[in-house]
């Protein structure tokens, strides 16, 4: 059963100057969020398969919206992340059902590859709750220049019986990375770590 989507929000965050330095090309992050009805709001349910299927649907939809917003080829995506905010009548496990079993595979197709774990966060909250979506390089989690996060928020969501699902895709790392560690050009990209 497809998700009942009330809203989709897409944001593009482009950083051109950081600490007085010009960032060229600008670093860019795209955030896509869906506000959906929670089919299990208000009840403890053991089997959350309906939300797992919704996760698969939204991994594709939101991943594609991010790549479109960036105006890039899927293979040019560099890092990703995912998050969910469950409304007051839900439980954290509803977010887990959307995020973890099946959201990753279609998201990885939307960004062409993605050997690395998709970092995530989750919480419960009311309208306008913000969540920080953690980001990591899609091929090698240890690339230090790409450890980052993006704040996601919908002013009028989630209502008590809703869930906000967020996906972020970027085409670069932090604006002025200079704390060493594994570099992009050193990536082997097989084990998802390095």
């Amino acid at each position, binding site marked *: 059963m497809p998700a009942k989507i009330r809203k989709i929000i897409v944001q593009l965050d482009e950083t051109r100057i*950081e*600490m*007085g*330095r010009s960032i060229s090309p600008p670093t860019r992050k795209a955030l896509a969020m869906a506000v959906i009805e929670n089919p299990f709001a208000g009840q*403890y349910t*053991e089997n*959350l398969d309906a939300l*797992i299927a919704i996760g698969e649907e939204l991994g594709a939809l939101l991943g594609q919206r991010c790549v479109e917003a960036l105006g890039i080829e899927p293979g040019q995506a560099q890092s990703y992340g995912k*998050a969910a905010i469950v409304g007051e009548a839900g*439980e*954290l*496990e509803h977010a*887990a*059902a959307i*995020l*973890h*079993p099946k959201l990753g595979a279609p998201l990885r197709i939307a960004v062409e590859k993605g050997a690395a*774990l998709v*970092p*995530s*966060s*989750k*919480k419960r909250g009311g309208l306008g709750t*913000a*969540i*920080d*979506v*953690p980001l*990591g390089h899609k091929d090698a*989690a*240890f*690339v*230090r220049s790409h*450890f*980052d*996060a993006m*704040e996601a928020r919908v002013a009028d969501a989630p209502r008590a019986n809703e869930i906000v699902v967020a996906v972020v895709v970027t085409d670069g790392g*932090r*604006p*002025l*990375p*200079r*704390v*060493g*560690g*594994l*570099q992009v050009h*050193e990536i082997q990209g097989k*084990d*998802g*770590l*390095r």
Partner: protein
Amino acid sequence: MIDIRRIFTHVEQIHHEFGPVAATPLLRGAIGVVLTNPFAGRYEPDLLPMMNALQPLGIDMAERLRAAMGVPAQSIEGYGKGAIVGSAGEQEHGAMWHVPGGYAMRELLGWKGDRQAYAQGQGEAKTGQPGNALAIVPSTKKVGAPGTTLDVPLTHINASYVRSHFDAIEVRVSGAPLADEIVFILAMSTGPRVHARMAGLAATGISQWDGLR
């Protein structure tokens, strides 16, 4: 170089979320250290000396958090880290915590790796279970006003893909960071989400001992 104004510790005990009451409550904790940002207001190209100077602080904070949670190191199953940089700083100032914060927690929890290699971003050859705390410490960071919240991700300390342990804790230090400060954060947990029922890789199924599975 390191001027600490405040240390904020938060520990919570979770019994249920309207499902079956947990036999052992889940403990989650976070510690935030508020310190002066030596680079506030200017572009400093070389952040590595400060990153190194933070190592003892990382070790101290990791131990304080464990002590505040009142459990032995062996009870810690999940971890994460984060940073909130005040408005006179830049996102990259938050990145100074990756090595000192991450390494400190992993060492506290029994990691027996090569510190130099880790700092340089290199891997190490491993077989069997070589000590504990094998997995990458997940993180978030942001620049924000005093009282900004940060959602700090938590994942299993030995295998990032253990599904029951994907979690996050919301951390906020009221009144911090001021414009010329940074809040560095560590987080730990003693178990899975209280009503985890998503199957996938279980903690008992860890077998590769590569920090992922």
